[in-house]
């Protein structure tokens, strides 16, 4: 139901994102999904990697002075067609939930499906909602197999 995500604090300066991805890349980390949230002063980078790469990636980041944390997010599949996402969001809205952030995988989980990573105001409630409405969520094993 929930999958693990690494979030990293980045200062806003030229080359900051390149430096971080270089560090991870040289360590053999394969990013399955990536999002960049930026404000005037700083950015938050969110990354999904396969479960065996989480600890090495976090250790490498911390050893190089980055602030990194592992947290849990929901990964849901929506049909890869117009209004696919909209239908999901309508459901979420009706349930009184809000999306704090959202991004998508760099590759499809299955043909015809788009895999989205979502952070809700109430993760448990969102998970139940998806279950009741037969919306497919990906498990950590699903992600590892991508």
């Amino acid at each position, binding site marked *: 139901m929930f999958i693990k*995500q690494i*979030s990293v*604090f*980045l*200062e806003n300066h030229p080359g900051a994102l390149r430096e971080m991805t270089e560090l991870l890349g040289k360590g053999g980390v394969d990013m399955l999904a990536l999002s960049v*949230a930026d*404000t005037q*002063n*700083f950015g*938050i980078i*969110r990354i999904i990697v396969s479960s065996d790469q989480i600890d090495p990636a976090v250790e490498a980041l911390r050893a190089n*002075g*980055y*602030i990194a*944390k592992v*947290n849990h997010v929901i990964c849901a599949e929506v049909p890869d067609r117009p209004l696919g996402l909209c239908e999901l969001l309508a459901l979420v809205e009706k349930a009184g939930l809000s999306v*704090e*952030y959202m991004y998508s995988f760099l590759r499809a989980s299955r043909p015809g499906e788009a895999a989205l990573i979502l*952070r809700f105001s109430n993760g448990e409630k969102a998970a139940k909602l998806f279950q009741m409405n037969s919306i497919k969520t990906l498990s950590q094993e699903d992600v590892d197999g991508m």
Partner: protein
Amino acid sequence: MSQTERRIYNPAVECISRDELHKLQGERLVKTVKREYENVPVYRARMDAAGVKPEDIRGLEDLKYLPFMEKTDLRDYYPFQLFASPKKDIIRIQGSSGTTGKPIVSGYTRNDIEVWSEMMARTLTAAGCTDEDIVQVTYGLGLFTGGFGAYQGADKLGAMVIPMSSGNTQRQITMMKDLGTTILCCTPSYATYLGETIREMGIDPAKDLKLKAGCFGAEPWTEEMRVRIEQLLNIDACDIYGLTEIAGPGVAFECLEKHGMHINEDHVIAEIINPTTGEQLPYGMPGELVFTTITKTGMPMLRYRTHDICTLTDDKCRCGRTLARMGRITGRTDDMLVIRGVNVFPSQIESVLVGADGVAPHYMLVVDRVNSSDTLEVQVELTEDMFGDTVSHIENVRKYITGQIKSVVGIASKVTLVAPKSIPRSEGKAKRVIDKRNLH
């Protein structure tokens, strides 16, 4: 005799009512001012210049009219010009070498040595010392007041004194072990070093030593250091405060409640002032600590500015003493900033930033003047505690810190969260302030 009573050397004074104390302080102040005016031309001229006559000082409430004394006075009037007693009555000189220029000295009459010894006897008693204890004095015995102060106090109590003086760690440990030292007097940094060496040697203080408490002072230290020393040496570690200009160690001391240092207020008056304006501040407000001696005869000091920043409280202590307490020294007035007319100490900002682990992240204060108005930016290195995966989480942390700074310091600031290790480190003392205002 109850446990509490045994731990108070002079209950009649240490547990005196605040009203009685203030009356006593007032009477002694009047006498001291008269003595100073009559015997010290330097201070007489200063009082005359301020338009204050000895008869204007009628009690404690008139203290605020007296001019201040400064460390520079001790240099300028070195060696004897501040003495208020004839040289034949001075039986001791103590002093400090001073890191720059002339040394400073203080002269003690027999009365002054007696007063100082009593203050140190109270100090040691508050840490649990009795005449059955063995006191190892590891402060330097010499011009520096630490060694003689501790020696005299322990001697007055009738404890067994080992006057080791400083240095030679191996010999310190041998004597400590062979003689069964129970009370240790030294600087907190040396106590830490002794503790580490003892542990490295495989000595278990709980089994192999008889130490029970220590009186540590002569340099600022922290609660984290206290915890470390107490663990390393298996003792109670008490903070003490003193300065040569006023007497020496024992001006203020911690009891085993370890909740601020009791000031020997029957011998000194402590004030907290605004370092910029010189006005007295109420208890609880941070400011510069100022001492007036009221029993010394050799070299009395009236309103001596320590330049140390702390707060005072006269809340009754659980130990039963009514003597007011001073908190730890949190900084020096030399570090103080005046921003939009408000006194700001970096230590205040630091207190806001201290995390759950008791450690403050690295920070930098950047002060500037934009459109003739001062600005304060507080750059704080983000810690894992503060970080979350959403922008709103970090924004909330930033807003929280901004609000706390506003409530503690009283001015608005711009808080910027920066990446770890992005604020330049300096060798030695951390540089906390960049002032771009070019006011000098």
